Every structure is written in structure tokens, then in C-alpha cells.
């Protein structure tokens, strides 16, 4: 963003202004002796604190008054703005100028130095007024090309529609219930499967509700259903990843891939989850959404690493970590090794635990220290 040029600091104001600066000797717009050569309309946007466009006004003729007063040409509803706050004019050179009309809070960023009385603006420049910003745009200001509807940039566009969102939620619920049913081994499987899926969905609903409230703060809608559909959809994707992981681990236990896919899936889906919710919630730009999403992903990753570092493995001497998932598949379709091969790979275990015993020394206790000479535990050969 280019900095607006503060004209009066340059020492050579192009036009006279309300504060009594002398007009240039051969030129004077407010004098109305020479009207502007060509009247060019201009667009004024009022931007919120996060850059979102609040209002957009097309001004057919300048000068135009900007302020909180109802007779303003550009009306800004902000307590820090004066009824007649500033004036937008165009000088003879065609340059747009924003002039302070003696406002309380002034124009431009508060730098602590001298308050600018007049700021020159090029098309697309932003200037601060109170807590909002103004952006002026000439009619020929370039605009970006239209985004195609099916673009990948809109990962959530399809679930913004309430009926589609509802359909996705219902589908996800059914899938979760089915998964719970297949995982249950009790007689009352259907009841417990429905219960399980209800618990999961209550959790999803609470999550979506939180995002809904956040959405309501930045826009005028809750979009809870879309948030729920997004979270439920990704839950199902995660379930599919976990299931794939289990099958791979069942078929190829020696490949050492146990939980690899699940871990990678979780690391990818978490930023995706956040990015999707942000897209549903706000008009945040794509790059900012992804930046936020990856910050969340990175924080989660750091959190997981810290937690796992805190987990002192050596304390769990009773825990056995092996992939014991069994899957319904005919024996001839399962890749196998011979008993000899298995016993060979087992031999490597010995080196592993020997290394553990060496490097991963137990927490030092006094018993691990050398014996003090005063109390020999071993018998001296010459006694008795």
C-alpha cells in the first residue's frame, strides 16, 4: 500500500484550503472562478478495521463532504467522525485531495507529529479516519478477473447451501453410526452405535456452534449448518484415513508405516478444517485464511510434540506397542513371510533393546552409583 502524500509537509500546497493556506498564484479551485475541466466520478469505499468494505459510494461530482452528518455525501457511522469531517476535492491537475474540515480526530494515521490538513490520494490509496479507513478508486481502477464457480479456492462453496449442508450432516451421521456398529461386539450393537454417533455429533454441533457465533460477529449470519457440515465431512475423511491406515498396517506390518498415514492426515486435515471454517465465516482473503490455518496447524503440531516429549516412554515398562488390528480377508489374500524370515527380523529387536538399555539410561538413583569404599558389598577373598 502506498503511503498517501502529505501535501502540506512538502511545503508547496497545490490548492488553497480551509485553514487559510495561500492559494497558488495562478490557480484556485475553491475560488470557483475556473471550474474543473472535466468532471470525473470517483468511488469512495469505507473499510472496517480488518479491511472489509462497509460501504461503497459513487460520487458523481466533487467536492464531496465526508462525515457523520446526514447531509454528508459519504456517510460514516462512527463516533470518532465529525458531522463534517473532511472534504474530497480534485485539483486542477486532476489529483484527488482529502482535506480536513477542522475535525476533532483529523485525517491520516496518528503519528504524533503535525496533523496533515490535506492528503493527496491516488486511485486505490487508503487513508485513516477515526477507526475506519477510506479508499478512493478512480473508475478505471483495475479489478481482478472473476473466480470461476468451481474453483478450488472455494472449498466450502457447495456447503454454504443449507440443504446441501443438511444432506452432508445426515450422510456423515449415517456413516459414523455404521462405523460404530461395525466396531461394536455386544448384542445391543444398534443402540450403542446410534448412541456413539450421537455423542460424536453433539461434539460436532458444539464445535460448529462456536464457529457460528464467530461468524455472527464478523458477518450477519450464523451459518451453523455449514460449519457442522464442514466439520462432519472432515470427520468422515479422517475416519477413512484411519481405516486405510489400519488396512495397510494389517497387510504390510513389516513396512513400519503404522499410524503414519493417520498422523499425516491429522496434520493436513487440521489446517484444512480451520481454513474451511474461516472461509464460511468471513470474507477473509484466501492467503490470510491459509496463513491462519497453518498457524493453527503449527501450534497443534508443537503442542503434540511438547506433549509427546513430556511422555517419558521409559516409564511405561508394561505397555506393548504392536499393531494388533485384524481384518476380515481370506488368508490367501494376505501377504505373508516365512517363519524363518520372521525369526530373522526378530533378531534385530535384540540390538534395539540393547541400545535402549545403553543410551536410555534409567533415572539415576543412588543405587546406580559406585559403592562407597566403607561398605563393600562383595566379600573380600582373604577373609573367613
Amino acid at each position, binding site marked *: 500500500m502506498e503511503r498517501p502524500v502529505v501535501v502540506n509537509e512538502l511545503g508547496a500546497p497545490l490548492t488553497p484550503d480551509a485553514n487559510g493556506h495561500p492559494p497558488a498564484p495562478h490557480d484556485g479551485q475553491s475560488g470557483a472562478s475556473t471550474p474543473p475541466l472535466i468532471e470525473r466520478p470517483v468511488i469512495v469505499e469505507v473499510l472496517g478495521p480488518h479491511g472489509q468494505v462497509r460501504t461503497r459510494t459513487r460520487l458523481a461530482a466533487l467536492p464531496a463532504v465526508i462525515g457523520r452528518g446526514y447531509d454528508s455525501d459519504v456517510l460514516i457511522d462512527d463516533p470518532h467522525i465529525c458531522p463534517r469531517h473532511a472534504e474530497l476535492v480534485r485539483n486542477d491537475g486532476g489529483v484527488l485531495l482529502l482535506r480536513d474540515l477542522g475535525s476533532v480526530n483529523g485525517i491520516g494515521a496518528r503519528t504524533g507529529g503535525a496533523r496533515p490538513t490535506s492528503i493527496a490520494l491516488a486511485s486505490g490509496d487508503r487513508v485513516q479516519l477515526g477507526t475506519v479507513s477510506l479508499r478512493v478508486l478512480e473508475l478505471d481502477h483495475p479489478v481482478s478477473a472473476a473466480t470461476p464457480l468451481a474453483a478450488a479456492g472455494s472449498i466450502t462453496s457447495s456447503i454454504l447451501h443449507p440443504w446441501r449442508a443438511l444432506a452432508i450432516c445426515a450422510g456423515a451421521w449415517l456413516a459414523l453410526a455404521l462405523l460404530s456398529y461395525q466396531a461394536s461386539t455386544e448384542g445391543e450393537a444398534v443402540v450403542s452405535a446410534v448412541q456413539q454417533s450421537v455423542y460424536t455429533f453433539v461434539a460436532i454441533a458444539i464445535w460448529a456452534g462456536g464457529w457460528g457465533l464467530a461468524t455472527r460477529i464478523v458477518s450477519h449470519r450464523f451459518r451453523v449448518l455449514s460449519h457442522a457440515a464442514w466439520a462432519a465431512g472432515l470427520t468422515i475423511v479422517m475416519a477413512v484415513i484411519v481405516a486405510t491406515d489400519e488396512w495397510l498396517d494389517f497387510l504390510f506390518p513389516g513396512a513400519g508405516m503404522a499410524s503414519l498415514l493417520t498422523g499425516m492426515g491429522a496434520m493436513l486435515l487440521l489446517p484444512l478444517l480451520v481454513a474451511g471454517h474461516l472461509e464460511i465465516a468471513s470474507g477473509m482473503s484466501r492467503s490470510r485464511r491459509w496463513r491462519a490455518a497453518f498457524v493453527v496447524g503449527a501450534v497443534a503440531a508443537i503442542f503434540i510434540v511438547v506433549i509427546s516429549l513430556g511422555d517419558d516412554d521409559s516409564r511405561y515398562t508394561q505397555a506393548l506397542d504392536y499393531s494388533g488390528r485384524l481384518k476380515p480377508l481370506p488368508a490367501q489374500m494376505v501377504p505373508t513371510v516365512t517363519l524363518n524370515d*520372521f525369526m530373522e527380523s526378530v533378531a534385530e529387536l535384540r540390538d534395539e533393546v540393547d541400545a535402549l538399555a545403553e543410551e536410555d539410561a534409567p533415572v539415576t538413583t543412588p543405587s546406580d552409583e559406585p559403592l562407597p569404599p566403607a561398605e563393600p558389598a562383595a566379600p573380600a577373598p582373604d577373609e573367613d
Partner: protein
Amino acid sequence: MHSLTRVACVLAVAAALGNTARPAGAQQLPVGTAEVFRRHADRVVRIQVVESGSAAKSTLGSGFFVGDGLVVTNYHVISRLVTDSARHRAELTDTRGETHPVRVLAIDVVHDLAVVHSDASPRSTFDIKPVELDQGERLYALGHPHDLGLTITEGTYNGPLKYVLYPKILFSGSLNPGMSGGPAIDTGGRVVGVNVSTAGNEISFLVPVDRVIALLERVRRPETSARSSLLAEAALQLRAYQDGYIARIFSDSIKRVTLGRFSLPTEPAPFFKCWADADRDEEDPYESVQHFCSTDDHVFISGEQSTGLLSLTHELLINKTLNPFRFHALYSGAFQNVLGSDVPFADAHAVTPYKCETRNVRRAEISLRAVFCLRKYRKLEGLYDALIKAAVIGSSETGLVTTLSLSGVTFENAHVLARRYLEQIAWNDQ
């Protein structure tokens, strides 16, 4: 099934067991007992291990003089001097109330014996010689139950236990915590064994006197030199003892049991005891049959670790109404379930975490999901705990999960036994 309780002298244990003990003095003793006590009482001592920091006793047991300043007791009475020597010291108190510091000379960790030395000068000592007795002969055990003072209790000699991994004499009398290491003598005052453990209700165990003789011989042999440490000695003894019995496990003449479509090994050696159970609930959509074999006795190393137990478990699952996915959810659960009895207790100071290797193995027309898990003893060189699990894959009608748990074995022995064991899993051809 019962688990043996060491006549442990750890005070916490003593306190916990206090109420269940039947006081030996409550019964009317035959005339001879008083005489036996009068003759031999001053040969028996109280041994306590003191934690240096707190100066409070952490273990209490008994022992007896055998001449040359030597005192015989249980290894588990003085184990802290071996495993945590810097923080502990031991002392004995004789019947005159004199206290002398003691020093460990030799241990036999497999048979739970130790020989310690002190400067005490007893009026008389036990002469240790081989003894032959008939079943039913009267025995007297002496010791300090619950630190209540020197006590004599009567019982009956019921001979050596048959089919056990670690030899013991069955003494039908009450041994209680604190009596560990005390002598069990016949009416003539000959030492028959050393009080060691109890299974409650007058079922008690003695270490046979021939193990004491062997240990004393080692102590008195001039060439017996000190090893680098008693811990290294303990590890060596445990490794050497295995060489005697590992070859007898899963030998060719092994017994087999038929579970569903499977023919499986059972009672891998005569010193295993086997049990079976079944869950057949009408409402459950499956049935489960369990078969379990164990050596039932362990070797005491320290309070932070138990070792020496071998066990074998088969669990057959029969599907009644579950679809293949649900049956496999059940089957996975059974395969992932590790019983407490499969994993010997051990503290992080004593062992490394487990590391496991998993493969799908095909052998003799049978496909198995096989797992081998291993952890190493940190303080006892060359010893490991191993857990071998296998599940038959490919069927949604029946499943079989089988587990072999080996504790305190060398890696070579674990490897050999795992192979022999997996080779024994077969279809039932009949």
C-alpha cells in the same frame, strides 16, 4: 490358582497380612516343642535391612548360625544390599539382644538363599548336613513373624514339590512374614530347609537343605573369589539355571490340546500347570474358550521386578451371530488385550520399555499374525522378558489368540522357544 507369597519381611507386606495370620502359639503344643526351642533358639537371629537415609528398617527377616561367623538367610531378606547397596546396610540381632553389622558373602538368587557374615559369637551353631525324612514327620520352624520376637511353630514335612521349576519342600505349617530365612528343623535339631514362602492356610515352603549345603561349599572353597558385583553373580546364576530347563520346553513329546479347528501345545514341560475355562453366555454373540499354563512360581530379584515365570495362554473365539467386520473388531480386541499375567511386573529402573516386531507369517498351511515383544533387564546382564503373541488370520467363524510369556530368559532362549512354539500351532486334522 494360587500365587505364592514370599514370607516377605517388607514391613508393608507384613502389616497387610497381619490379620490373616493364625497365631502359632494359640494351639496346644506337644511336650517336645519347648525342649526344641530351648536347645536351638539362640542359633536363630533377627536380620534387618536399614535404609541409610531414614535409619529405619525397610526389611525384616530371620537367619541362623552355621559356624565360622556365617549366617544363612533368604536372598530376598537382604536383596536390597545387592540391588541398592549404597543406600542400605544390614544388621543382625541375636537372642541376647546384641546387634552386629552383616556383610553379604554369597547369594543363590534362583533358590532364594544368601550367606552373610557377622562378628557375632553364638554359643552354638547348626551343623548343616544332608537330611532324609519320611513324609509326615514333625518339623519346627523358627523365626521372627511380624517382628513379634523369636517364635517356634510346628508343622509337618510333606516332601519336595514335584514338577516345579524351582525346588521347594512343602511344609504344612504356618509361616508368616518375618520368618523368612529362619531354619525349619526336625526333632533332632537337624536343619531340613529354610523358611521361604507361604500360600496361606498352613501351606508353606522351604528351600531344601541341599541347596544350603551347595552354597556353603561355594563360600568355603578357597578359590571362591569375589565377582565384580553380586548383581553380576545373580545374572550369571539366572542364565546358567535356564540351560537346564529350556531344552525340556516344547520338546517333541509335548502334549497337545484341541481347541475348535486347532491343535495346540499344552503343558510345554512337566513343571507347567494348566487350567481351562470357557465363557458361554447365551446373550453374547460369541463364545470364548481359554486354556492357560504357567510355571506358577517366580524368582525374587528385588521389590522393583519379578522374574522367572513362564506362561502360555490360548483363547479360542467362536462367532455365533457377528458379521465379519464386527467379529474382527472383537478378534482385534482379544489380540490387542495383554493380560497382567503375561507381563511381569517391573519398574522403569529395572527394565527398558518393550519393543515389538509384527509380521504376517505363513507356515504349514496356517497364516498367523505374529508378534514378538522384547525388553531388556537394565541391571542383570544378558536377561530379557519376551512376549510372543499370534492370531490365526483368514476366518470369520473362529479365531485363535495365543500368547507365550517368558520372563528372565536370554535372548537366544527366547528366540528358540518362540520358534518351537509357533511351529506347534497347527490345524486339527481329525
